[in-house]
């Protein structure tokens, strides 16, 4: 435990000993700030003349401002996490310090969790920017704290999912650019696949003339594929949760996502015992 903490502390500090930490947090602050101002303007316009936007009464604050803004922050995290995670293990391997880590009296879990929590720490630093925006809103209008709490939780859970993915990719690459690119590619793929799932028709694609047993089989396989495409998407589980509607399956999705890639990272570490 103390070792995990020590690894985490060094990793977190090294983000701010090099420019990368400032760059990431700075970019996040700039982009999320602009997004915040934009959504605030839109909300103000909607409140002045709700009928022009198809509302009969003043639009719900959480639904039209808070939730979209937080989901946007989650997507922004998706774009920025590869920059956080690409160096975690790839850099250690590239400059050889992995040899130190692996010959010091550490367990694999000290290294993996230490790195994971350090990256999560950067994410939480980024989220402090969101907290500033929320405090600004809070000073203008009161809102349900649960909405804010679960909104932030959404960003944190999405972030931890992307971080675990990036950590795994970093554990199997030596080059930071490769590591970042693959992480970004997979994240983006998981994002667009959801849009594809929504567009897929529900009907069984097998021609009606085919034998019944084959049709049933294809029908099930297709439904499974479509379900996967819709459910695997990283943002599909964020929208409702950011509104404060918390369903166990949404939280479970992100936790399982994180656990799965952490598990793969452990296996990647162990592979040094049998790979030649």
């Amino acid at each position, binding site marked *: 435990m103390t070792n995990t903490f020590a690894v985490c502390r060094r990793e977190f500090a090294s983000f701010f000993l090099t420019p990368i930490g400032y760059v990431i947090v700075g970019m996040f602050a700039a982009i999320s700030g602009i997004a915040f101002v934009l959504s605030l303007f839109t909300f103000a316009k909607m409140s002045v003349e709700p009928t022009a936007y198809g509302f009969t009464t003043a639009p719900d604050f959480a639904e039209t401002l808070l939730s979209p803004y937080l989901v946007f922050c989650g997507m922004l995290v998706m774009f920025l996490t590869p920059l956080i995670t690409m160096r975690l293990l790839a850099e250690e391997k590239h400059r050889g310090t992995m040899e130190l880590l692996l010959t010091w*009296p550490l367990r694999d879990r000290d290294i993996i969790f230490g790195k994971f929590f350090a990256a999560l720490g950067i994410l939480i630093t980024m989220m402090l920017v969101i907290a500033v925006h929320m405090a600004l809103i809070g000073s203008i209008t009161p809102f349900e704290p649960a909405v804010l709490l679960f909104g932030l939780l959404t960003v944190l859970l999405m972030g931890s999912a992307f971080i675990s993915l990036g950590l795994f990719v970093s554990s199997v690459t030596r080059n930071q650019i490769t590591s970042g690119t693959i992480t970004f590619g997979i994240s983006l793929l998981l994002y667009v696949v959801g849009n594809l799932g929504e567009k897929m028709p529900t009907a069984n694609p097998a021609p009606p003339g085919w034998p019944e047993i084959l049709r049933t089989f294809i029908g099930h396989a297709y439904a499974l594929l479509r379900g996967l495409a819709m459910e695997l998407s990283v943002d599909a589980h964020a929208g409702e949760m950011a509104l404060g509607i918390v369903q166990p399956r949404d939280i479970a999705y992100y936790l399982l996502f994180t656990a799965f890639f952490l598990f793969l990272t452990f296996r990647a570490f162990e592979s040094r015992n049998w790979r030649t």
Partner: protein
Amino acid sequence: MIEVQGLTKYFGSIAALQDATFSIEAGEIVGFLGPNGAGKSTAMRILTGFFPASRGEARIDGYEVHENPLEVKRRVGYLPENVPLYDEMTVKGFLTYVARMKGVARTQQAEELDRVMEKCGLRDMGKRTLHQLSKGYRQRVGIAQALTGSPPVLILDEPTVGLDPGQIVDIRSMIKELGGDHTVLLSTHILPEVSMVCDRVIIISRGHIVAQDTMEQLTAAGGKTLEQAFMDAVASDRSSGTEETQ
């Protein structure tokens, strides 16, 4: 202290180390001598638990390296060949981190740091960033890192490479001082270094151990110099190797 039995390591189909068997008593300073690519680093990396052997077993203080990695790693200080360091950290920051990693008690960390920095001639370098350091000072930080926590076994992969003559003398006398309290296994391809520092030599060539003996035995037999003894040992391996292929 170190017992190695039939240690073999394959990288793909290439055997980097074949059937290495040797043992080192507590307090000895033993030199691993061999041409480049002979398998010195491979043997050391197995002993330190960086990667496992393909076959055979290695014990440090009675613990098998692959079965009890933590126990072994607590007893071994290791200087890797290219001295990897966290370049963005300061000397002191890095060594504090190392002390923490090696489980030095919080109250003793400052004392331990002073001790290793004093020993490695880093006393005035604490605030310097690692990437600014010259090769010689990097090497010292690497050795300080290995000494931190005072492990009974020290495994040093080419500790004097890249140093200037003055520094080489310093490091060698430091290693000699370490003998007795510590068991030291160091690798080198500089012949005179072995005769100056080590009690015993293990000569390794193309993955095979071709000779192991005390300095006196190796050179005194037939009044040979260490160079001759080394060349003979390596040559005997070469000729037996060609016979095998024929």
